[in-house]
């Protein structure tokens, strides 16, 4: 029971951050969603130790573990669009598949390249340190 109340209270804290984000979003007419602003605010607060991690960790863990449940009501909305089971729907799915392949290929190759570059730079630094030492 105590644990349940603890989680509930922590979810309330997360709600407050999401609400503040929404207020900022509306106030400045930003295109970035309010919840993302809330995420960034919470991250900054955690890093600056304004909000201790133990105030949100149970609530965050609970929400993230049951995340799938929260988008089911929105997914059910697909029942209003039976036209998706048509040729256009199939084409759309094909476009998503192709785009996913492209993304994985490009992101994977690029990141591997960046990693190698970063590694080389690190090696260079160590090398120059070593050579200056020996000189």
């Amino acid at each position, binding site marked *: 029971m105590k644990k349940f109340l603890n989680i509930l209270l922590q979810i309330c804290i997360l709600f407050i951050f999401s609400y503040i984000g929404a207020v900022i979003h509306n106030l400045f007419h930003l295109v970035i969603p309010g919840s993302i602003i809330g995420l960034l605010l919470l991250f900054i607060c955690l890093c600056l130790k304004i909000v201790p991690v133990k105030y949100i960790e149970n609530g965050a863990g609970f929400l993230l573990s049951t995340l799938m449940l929260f988008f089911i009501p929105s997914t059910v909305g697909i029942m209003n669009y039976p036209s998706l089971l048509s040729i256009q729907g199939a084409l759309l799915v094909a476009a998503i598949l192709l*785009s996913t392949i492209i993304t994985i290929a490009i992101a994977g190759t690029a990141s591997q390249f960046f990693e190698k570059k970063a590694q080389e730079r690190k090696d260079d630094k160590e090398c120059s340190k070593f050579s200056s030492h020996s000189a």
Partner: protein
Amino acid sequence: MQQILFAFCMILLTIVVYFLMTRIYKRYSYSFLIPVLTATTLIIVILSVFHIPYKSYMIGGQWISSLLGPSVVALAYPLYKQRHFLINNLFSILGGVLIGAISGMVSIGLLAKIIGINQTLILSIIPKSLTTPVAIEVTKGLGGNVSMAIVGVMVAGIFGAIAAPTIFKIMRVYSPVGRGIALGSASHAMGTSKAAEYSELTFSMSSVTMTLSAIIGSFLGPIVVWIFHI
């Protein structure tokens, strides 16, 4: 009073169906049995059988949906836990995530435009590589359709996790960093759970990438739409 009772029944229905489907998924663990897919189908069948329109269902459903906002905020927690890891690999992660996010959004935007899909649908699938709660928000902001966005996210997630190993082989992506970033930026949470099968490092990479993609993607979405006149 009757409406409150009805709303309560809809909430209960969603939760019960969800947990039932989660148990089935854990027992058989085929990727096409993911609870979102099966639970959604079952709820649609139940609603159709009892002639309940979606609008009435959402009287209860909106209460469950309202937890999406705090869930997005909650993503700050895993990001915070991995902050040291993030700082140590800042250059490769940021570069990879940025390129991944751009290629994901631009490729789907162009492909959909070439095929000639209508504007609302394109706007709904632009954020398909972002994690669902964020994709929902981004789609709303762009003026797309939320249900369609979720379908796009699911397709990208499931397919990415299935196809990734083959793509890695063809493109010779062997490093855990490259694999993690590719999975996280193309297939969000499902890619991340696939990444966990490779190694601890691949998993951390993928989960950090997923969160960063969500943040970068919410900035990038409107820009891509604006540049390509979608």
